[in-house]
């Protein structure tokens, strides 16, 4: 028998000798013992592939490999794959890394393929990368990159004034492809306590503790509960609805709710048997659906919320019932959607420590300033005593807007004075954080003899789960958007956020609008078919135009939906012809084509949401952009800088990015509501313009002068005139700058009246997508062949990043349509909860439309959420075109599609 005093291996070409338990996960040993944090952990179950490493050249999941297995082997991690020439460079060149959390796994898996062949096919790439999940990119650019490692192309370095519109590589890309990016789990302060939570296994009930102190003493750990929370043990993203305890106090309203935290040395906490923790549960029957929550007499999840109604939103104009009665055609429909999980590959993670009297939190987040303010309230601190340094976020999509582990590690560090860290398990992440709202919706709509929409009535119940989170936003956004980007003179829409004991429904790319669009866009297909009008033409007949009024009575300009639909005329005709040709020779697999549109207001609904950008020059000539918007992979770091550069008229390469960090960056709000390019972008534009004006003013030069940085001098040139500012001679301000500006922008919106009339958003974005699908009439399976997506961005700041948003949004829309359904308590992992793999993605053709918005910076509009909205209804409309099956419940799993096909045929 082999003695195992230690394990000798080679890691990235260097000898290593490990004295660790042989049954330890290789991922853990690489990260914690060897400090190779480029290997990411997303699931600890082989479901996501983020931890892919090579053992003697063969790809494995390091999380499934006991370290004994690598005795005498050669292990290669992302830190060692620079040996594959051109691979990392190709990822940068193609924009294949967004948030970057899957990137190491993708790179390592690709390197195994490329060591076998220099000329892989697309199918080879899919087979090689099929085991690595990505939630951001839609895989398209990853495939492009792997197929193009030998390609050429130096990084684009735009001249002054030429940054906007240039396909600039992401400015923060380097660390994402070399494994050095620091995500929430990647930084551990020296001596940090490991924190674990005790969570409710039940959806509803009460609980009481036994002798916690004795248990803590026996196990040599500290335990904290609700009674230890020094401030207000309630939080919520919307101050008026603060209702969620950081640690539950005697009552649990959802499975996964934390009731206690345990902190101690990592080697102690790791070995704890938490099943012995002294807590007694008093399980009660939960309410799991809106149907169960709304009848009279239903048990209330919150005492003060009658009928389990959190809030209702309404928009009404004209006389919809009368208009329906007069309509030439009417159609009605209903749609049901389930919980959808964000399924970012990075589970929530972070660290906390004290810096003097200030509590510092380094964790993944989309909303650093909101985190700061909520934490201060919970922990009884001044806002100035909390500093949030966002780690890189390995995906967010809305769920990382809400607090998760921050109050837990914050409490531990505040109480012990010691640094602490916490990394959610995949199960913990999926069971305790927010979801997309399940929707139960009905709608009716009518058209006149010419096919013009005359009326629509929409009604929806949205299961908002145990706590408020973004339920109010969904309830308000849905009625505004449920009409789609169409002119409808008579309209009544209501949406209610209903409490249940399900997971908290919060923000997820689109805030309820993707659910509403599923019903609205399939219903409009019904109308087009009933009227005998081509489905694209129907949408063109009804599309909003400049000067039209929305259902809220808002007069719109810069409306790009017509342009998007017009751009799709050619692809639509081609797709229909191709489907007809394909179907002529096939009986079992039928091709179908569908279309759907979207619109989406950028920024908060009728509420202030300012962003402030600071731009400063040091006496040494460093130009620093304080960019406080969390870049969760979507590209704010790059796009905001591009806007600022052109506004100032200085080359993008001159800018240094600072932040985000609540101690050094002014508030840029949250990364949500597709607002960063628009709102923070506009603040960046104003800041760039202001600093330019300041420099021109000090040099007394004209508006057209050229500004350039030359060492510690600014040189301003206007024709033959040339002036300099010697920065080193100027006094520094409180921020260490000799010249600086702070500029704030808040979109001009107005409150909605009792009928939802007003100006909810200052800017809207528009889009439309065509889906081409194959439906297997005997098995009910659906394969999406191609998506053609036309999106109006107003002004394209960065086409490379914009395409990445479209491709990633389509991947999530495809998941919503065909496979994703989170069943509370049953699908708390990434093998029962399915998101699209690289093999599920169609070809994607992006068409970028520029219809400038009068308000947006350089005409720009938001894009991030828009891209997901039309995908699912376009796919459902294509399924119907192919098979006759009208799908009114997503996901359209094979058994549901087959049932619908049979229903349509009978």
């Amino acid at each position, binding site marked *: *028998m082999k003695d195992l005093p230690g394990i000798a291996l080679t890691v990235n070409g260097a000898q290593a000798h490990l004295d660790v*338990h042989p*049954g*330890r996960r290789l991922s853990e040993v690489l990260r914690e013992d060897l400090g190779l944090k480029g290997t990411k952990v997303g699931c600890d*179950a082989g*479901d996501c*592939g983020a931890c892919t490493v090579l053992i003697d050249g063969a790809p494995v999941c390091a999380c*499934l490999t006991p370290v*004994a297995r690598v005795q005498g082997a050669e292990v290669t991690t992302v830190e060692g794959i620079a040996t594959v020439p051109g691979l990392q460079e190709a990822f940068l060149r193609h924009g294949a890394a967004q948030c970057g959390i899957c990137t190491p796994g993708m790179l390592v898996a690709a390197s195994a393929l490329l060591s076998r062949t220099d000329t892989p096919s697309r199918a080879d790439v899919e087979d090689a990368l099929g085991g690595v999940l990505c939630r951001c990119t839609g895989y398209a650019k990853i495939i492009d990159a792997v197929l193009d490692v030998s390609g050429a192309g130096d990084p684009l370095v735009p001249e002054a004034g030429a940054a906007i519109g240039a396909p600039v590589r992401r400015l923060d890309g380097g660390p994402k492809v070399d494994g050095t990016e620091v995500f929430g789990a990647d930084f551990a302060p020296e001596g940090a306590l490991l924190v674990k939570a005790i969570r409710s296994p039940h959806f509803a009930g009460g609980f009481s503790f036994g002798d916690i102190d004795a248990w803590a003493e026996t196990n040599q750990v500290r335990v904290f509960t609700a009674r230890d929370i020094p401030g207000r043990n309630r939080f919520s993203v919307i101050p008026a609805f603060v209702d969620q305890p950081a640690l539950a106090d005697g009552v649990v309203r959802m499975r996964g709710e934390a009731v206690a935290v345990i902190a101690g040395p990592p080697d102690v906490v790791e070995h704890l048997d938490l099943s012995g923790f002294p807590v007694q549960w008093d399980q009660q029957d939960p309410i799991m659906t809106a149907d169960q929550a709304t009848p009279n007499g239903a048990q209330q999840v919150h005492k003060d919320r009658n009928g389990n109604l959190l809030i209702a939103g309404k928009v009404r104009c004209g006389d919809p019932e009368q208009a329906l009665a007069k309509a030439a055609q009417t159609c009605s429909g209903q749609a049901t959607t389930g919980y959808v999980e964000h399924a970012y590959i990075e589970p929530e993670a972070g660290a906390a420590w004290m810096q003097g009297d200030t509590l510092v939190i380094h964790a993944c987040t989309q909303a650093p300033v909101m985190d700061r303010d909520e934490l201060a309230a919970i922990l009884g601190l001044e806002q100035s005593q909390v500093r949030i340094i966002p780690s890189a976020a390995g995906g967010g999509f809305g769920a990382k807007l809400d607090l998760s582990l921050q109050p837990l590690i914050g409490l531990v560090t505040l109480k012990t004075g010691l640094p602490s860290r916490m990394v959610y398990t995949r199960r913990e992440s999926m069971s305790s954080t927010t979801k997309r709202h399940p929707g139960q919706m009905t709608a009716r709509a009518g058209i006149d003899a010419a096919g013009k929409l005359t009326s629509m009535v929409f009604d929806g119940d949205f299961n908002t789960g145990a706590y408020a989170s973004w339920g109010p936003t969904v309830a308000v956004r849905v009625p505004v958007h449920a009409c789609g980007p169409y002119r409808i003179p008579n309209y009544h829409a209501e949406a209610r956020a209903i409490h249940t004991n399900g997971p908290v429904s919060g923000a997820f790319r689109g805030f309820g609008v993707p659910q509403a669009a599923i019903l609205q866009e399939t219903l409009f297909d019904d109308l087009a078919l009933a009227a005998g009008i081509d489905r694209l033409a129907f949408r063109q007949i009804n599309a909003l135009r400049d000067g039209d009024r929305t259902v809220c009575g808002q007069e719109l300009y810069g409306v790009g939906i017509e342009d998007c639909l017009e751009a799709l005329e050619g692809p639509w005709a081609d797709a229909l012809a191709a489907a007809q040709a394909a179907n002529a020779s096939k009986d079992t697999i039928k091709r179908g084509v569908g279309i759907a549109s979207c619109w989406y207001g950028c920024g908060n609904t009728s509420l202030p949401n300012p962003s402030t950008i600071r731009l400063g020059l040091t006496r040494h000539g460093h130009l620093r952009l304080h960019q406080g918007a969390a870049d969760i992979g979507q590209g704010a770091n790059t796009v905001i800088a591009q806007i600022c550069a052109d506004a100032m008229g200085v080359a993008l390469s001159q800018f240094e990015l600072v932040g985000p960090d609540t101690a050094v960056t002014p508030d840029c709000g949250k990364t949500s509501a597709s607002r960063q390019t628009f709102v923070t972008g506009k603040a960046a534009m104003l800041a760039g313009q202001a600093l330019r004006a300041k420099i021109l003013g000090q040099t007394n030069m004209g508006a057209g002068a050229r500004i350039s940085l030359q060492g510690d001098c600014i040189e301003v040139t206007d024709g033959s005139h040339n002036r300099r500012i010697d920065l080193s001679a100027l006094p520094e301000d409180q921020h260490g700058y000799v010249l600086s500006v702070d500029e704030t922008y808040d979109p001009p919106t107005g409150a909605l009246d009792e009928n939802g009339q007003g100006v909810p958003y200052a800017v809207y974005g528009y889009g439309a997508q065509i889906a081409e699908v194959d439906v297997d009439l005997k098995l009910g399976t659906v394969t999406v062949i191609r998506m053609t997506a036309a999106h109006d961005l107003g002004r394209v700041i960065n086409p490379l990043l914009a395409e990445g948003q479209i491709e990633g949004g389509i991947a999530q829309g495809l998941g919503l349509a065909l496979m994703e359904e989170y069943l509370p308590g049953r*699908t708390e992992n990434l093998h029962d909860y399915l998101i699209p793999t690289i093999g599920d993605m169609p070809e994607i053709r992006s068409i970028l439309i520029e219809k400038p918005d009068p308000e947006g910076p350089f005409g720009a509009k938001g894009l991030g959420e828009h891209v997901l909205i039309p995908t699912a209804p376009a796919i459902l409309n294509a399924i119907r075109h192919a098979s006759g099956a009208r799908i009114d419940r997503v996901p359209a799993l094979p058994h549901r599609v087959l049932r619908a096909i049979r229903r349509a045929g009978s």
Partner: protein
Amino acid sequence: MNAYFRPDTLAEALDVLETESVTVAAGCTDLFPATERPTLPGSILDITAIPGLRGVQQTADGWRIGATASWADIIRADLPPAFDMLQQAGREVGSVQIQTAGTIAGNLCNASPAADGVPPLLALDASVELTSKTGTRCLPLSSFVIGVRQTALVPGELVSAITIPNSAGEGASRFLKLGARRYLVISIAMVAVRLSVRSDKIASAAIAVGACSPVAQRLDMLEARLIGLPVGGVAKAITGDVVSPSLSPIDDVRGDAGYREDAAIELIQRAVTRAVEDVS
């Protein structure tokens, strides 16, 4: 601290198995997902350092798949067309990462109703070789996997090999797996079909269905019906009356029972049709 045994002979492994309470570990692709801990829980008997348990060999009696042969080993092995279904199943197991590490014997021991390895091995008339200190016994696969997460292993025993008789090396074969996505997917239903054809008639048929019953099933009634049929009309003979009695599908997150039954019939028809094309 929990013990971790990694012997390099089978004899040492059997000693450990007799004297210690251990979990036998090979690919670990099922063991690690079952824990959230950073280290495999309990004491472990890791059999992957035993050279005699590796690889896929042809023997006088047929084929022998070692207990630690990975799916990647199966995919790369030089095997006759009768094994195409097994290799096709291998390519659909999880991902390349899982195929590199996961073993086919472990797939049997895990005894999931949706184990990708079971239907093709049933259709290859596979047996499982079980070894203990007291000797070796061979069980037909259908007697080895006896229920959901249940096998016929007794204490002190481990699976040392999977064997396939020469008689099963005949014919063409196909595996079809139905899931809701392309990679990393658990089957809604799957079928494995092996056929031989003589004089344009079905001479032998071995057909198995997985994920439609607690343990994957051979479809004896259907096989009997197909033998002797002309290849042209064979798909039409695959009907519910000879398929459904062997299945007991359930409703779960992946699909409902009725759908599974219908899908199994459709998949068998397709797999048989393609296998017939392969031999014709």
